């Protein structure tokens, strides 16, 4: 579980920090350098001689996901407004294609070769290297106003260091406690209770700091004052991420226990979701371009999430 959890943790911790810093230093080098971490991490996983080493490799890969929010921002910034639905649809379709390739290619490699996972991670390392290289050559945006008008000292002063401390330490401790609970330590053990309480308190401190002590920091109050759309979007993204990582972590495992033993057929079952996501992304892009609204596709997609999880609950063996 720690293999994928490392990615989730680093996404949560680094995403807001990198996003804020990218407003001051520009998007390009965060994308390029953090993607290089993905290449290095994938090489470490491919050469792993222990599970600990594989997890360490995934932690290094996790740094790549600090730049994930920038992907959507860049697509919106470099293309005209009229193409934005298509641009965002293209990003989701590319994510779906990556998932599909990973599932089918990866499971075929696992099935064919005893050490197929090493080949898989070589391929991922190559993809990361190619992405970093193409971004460094092809993405040359005009500097942002704050990028050129502020000195490095001013930029550093504008970052919300207190919030970063609370967020990073709070999230990591809280998640470690939840992961260790009942496996391997009981809920009431020191190893679970101490990080759970300290992590929880740090997250409460983050909320207090952001509500009463800093209005333009990590959680900028202006984003919530205009209307309810931003808060709604955040909640929707939270549920979306929860659903994706739940399926990514447990669906294949569940199918492997209940229905299939062939890794490729397990991957094939899960891959239906990615076929759907590619078709859905493109369809929504066309719909949003024509109708100038995304409400109906969002409602429909969440109804389908509900249907999926509802039906998973009543599986007939």
């Amino acid at each position, binding site marked *: 579980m720690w*293999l*994928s959890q*490392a*990615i989730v943790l680093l996404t949560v911790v680094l995403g807001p920090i990198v996003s804020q810093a990218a407003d001051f230093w*520009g998007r390009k080098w965060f994308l390029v350098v953090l993607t290089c971490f*993905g290449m290095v991490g994938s090489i470490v996983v491919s050469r*792993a001689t222990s*599970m600990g080493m594989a997890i360490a490799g995934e932690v290094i890969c996790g740094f790549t*996901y600090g730049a*994930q929010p920038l*992907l959507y921002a*860049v*697509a*919106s*910034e*470099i*293309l*005209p*407004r009229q193409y934005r639905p298509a641009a965002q649809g293209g*990003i989701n379709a*590319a*994510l*779906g*294609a*990556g*998932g599909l*390739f*990973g*599932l089918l290619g*990866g499971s075929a490699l*696992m099935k064919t070769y*005893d*050490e197929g*996972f090493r080949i*898989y*991670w070589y*391929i*991922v390392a190559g*993809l*990361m290297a*190619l992405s970093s290289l*193409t*971004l460094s050559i092809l*993405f*040359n*945006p*005009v*500097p*942002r*106003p*704050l990028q*050129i*008008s502020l000195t490095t000292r001013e930029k550093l002063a504008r970052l919300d260091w207190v919030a970063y401390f609370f967020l990073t330490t709070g999230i990591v401790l809280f998640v470690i406690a939840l992961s260790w609970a009942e496996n391997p330590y009981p809920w009431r053990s020191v190893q679970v209770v101490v990080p759970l309480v300290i992590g929880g308190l740090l997250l409460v401190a983050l909320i207090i700091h952001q509500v009463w002590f800093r209005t333009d920091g990590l959680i900028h109050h202006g984003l919530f004052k*205009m209307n309810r759309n931003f808060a709604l979007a955040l909640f929707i993204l939270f549920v979306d991420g929860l659903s994706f*990582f739940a399926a*990514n*972590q447990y669906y294949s495992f569940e199918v*492997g226990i209940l229905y299939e033993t062939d*890794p490729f057929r397990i*991957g094939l079952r899960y891959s239906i979701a990615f076929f759907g996501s590619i078709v859905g992304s493109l369809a929504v892009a066309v719909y949003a371009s024509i109708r100038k609204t995304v409400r109906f596709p969002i409602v429909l997609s969440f109804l389908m999430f509900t249907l999926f999880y509802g039906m998973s609950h009543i599986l007939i063996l």
Partner: protein
Amino acid sequence: MSQHHDVNDEQIQKHTSIYNEYINDPATQAELARIDTVDVINYDGIHIKTVLAYISILLLCFAQLTNIVGAGAVSDPESWADKDLF
């Protein structure tokens, strides 16, 4: 930084003035969702460089999901242990 080399002062001034005007005018704050494309920071017209930059972003999306799926659904530590890989 190499990003700066093809940007002249006029461009910088234009972007800075748009930004300052925008953040200092409370009336425009409410229009955040409807800001015109030409006023979006970093938008510099659609041309081959823009398309290539977008394609490189798509490639990174592809690579990121390949990595996530690899760490989640594809990786099966139990089978790794069964095969005595480590």
